[in-house]
């Protein structure tokens, strides 16, 4: 079973619906006890970094994540905020601390004239190598994005893909059992479903 973490940040129903559509067993919960039973965890969400961290902390979910993902090495898929939160800090509304699983920080787009914010729509994801999550998804494939902040990874060895929006930002991170993407696979049509299916297959390895 895939556990989808509900922490009051945006519409996470679509991630559940996508797994259901694929015939993959998944559930949504905010309870650490329930989520512990999952073999893999997904952290979706859109919204403010600070609110996300305080909501997670309030429900004991940061401890849960550290136990399940860092100690037990369960597969993790972070989507959008779920990518940003794995870094050390965000500059959204002052400095906010993240999980610190990967070195780097989350910063606001500072773009030349003519660029719209949020970065909203379909953009290309340029991968740096091969990974089971990108099986039959070539480098340069379009995925759907919606965000105003982006991650800048310091440990380049974990930066698996980048996307160009005035700046080349980190659009996918891969570090052992941790995978995180800035785009929304659950909103990226058939290619997004393929990505989620790939995650499920990889999570069973």
């Amino acid at each position, binding site marked *: 079973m895939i556990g989808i973490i509900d922490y009051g940040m945006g519409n996470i129903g679509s991630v559940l619906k996508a797994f259901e559509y694929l015939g993959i067993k998944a559930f949504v919960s905010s309870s650490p006890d329930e989520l512990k039973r999952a073999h893999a965890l997904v952290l979706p969400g859109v919204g403010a970094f600070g609110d996300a961290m305080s909501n997670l902390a309030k429900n004991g979910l940061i401890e849960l994540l550290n136990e399940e993902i860092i100690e037990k090495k369960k597969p993790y898929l972070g989507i959008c905020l779920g990518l940003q939160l794995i870094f050390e800090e965000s500059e959204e509304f002052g400095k906010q601390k993240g999980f610190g699983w990967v070195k780097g920080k989350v910063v606001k787009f500072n773009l030349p004239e003519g660029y719209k914010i949020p970065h909203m729509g*379909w*953009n290309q994801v340029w991968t740096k190598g091969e990974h089971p999550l990108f099986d039959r998804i070539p480098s340069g494939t379009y995925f*759907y994005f919606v965000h105003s902040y982006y991650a800048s990874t310091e440990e380049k060895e974990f930066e698996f893909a980048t996307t160009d929006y005035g700046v080349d930002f980190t659009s996918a991170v891969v570090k052992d059992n941790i995978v995180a993407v800035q785009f929304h696979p659950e909103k990226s049509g058939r290619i997004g479903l393929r990505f989620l299916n790939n995650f499920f297959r990889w999570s069973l390895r």
Partner: protein
Amino acid sequence: MLAKRIIPCLDVKDGRVVKGVNFVNLRDAGDPVEIAMRYDEEDADEITFLDITASYEKRGIIIDVVRETARRVFLPLTVGGGIRTIDDIRALLNVGADKVSINTAAVYNPHLIEEGAEKFGSQCIVVAIDARRITEKKNEETLEMYYREKGFSEMWEEVRIDNQSKFEVYTHGGRKPTGIDAVKWAKFVEKMGAGEILLTSMDRDGTKQGYDLELTAEVSTSVKIPLIASGGAGNLEHLYEGFTIGKADAVLAASIFHYREFTIREAKEFLKNRGIPVRL
């Protein structure tokens, strides 16, 4: 590179698509879920439902339509039409809409934009603006008194039409003038927290003469949030102009796709050959 988006819009009345879509082998030309699935297969970038249900009792039907669509179509889904309250917004987001588009209610209660953005995030609040060119004939009917009575006097000063104004905001499906300047209104809704603007030229809507490019470019360049152009697309050249001259980030089109004059893929191929970045 960020692709320019092509968004088909389905007018839904009492849970059925009006102006039925002529897809080949479609079992039910009026079923919004099936039509949305077809557009997904054709690589539409998003889907928009415009609920034009008139009777209050039947308004709940759109909720079921959205729920069913969100189970089978994994694209960004926007729903507009008749949204008045935070509860209306919540109900649609809960069943799987990604964005809601607010039009008349935003004009009558600008705080709805602010509250919606605070509660659900700017990315799900689209403000739809219906605009017309201001003609010589002076429009006496404005919302000035309404704004003053509601205690919105400051807002009124910010958005009212002045001597320089070229475009006026209309409500109620383009029937009622407001006395509000469309460009000022766009800047104002951005400040209130809107995440995107859906701009329709009521002069061009249904004419197939192309988007009002001057209106589109003026609004698009005066805000930082993405702009979707709508109203008047009759051929693929019009889509191209919407992006180049109109500086739109996305185009919304109904009839040219519904009647299968062009498929979405044909539109994208045309645009790609002309140098517009699209997802194919």
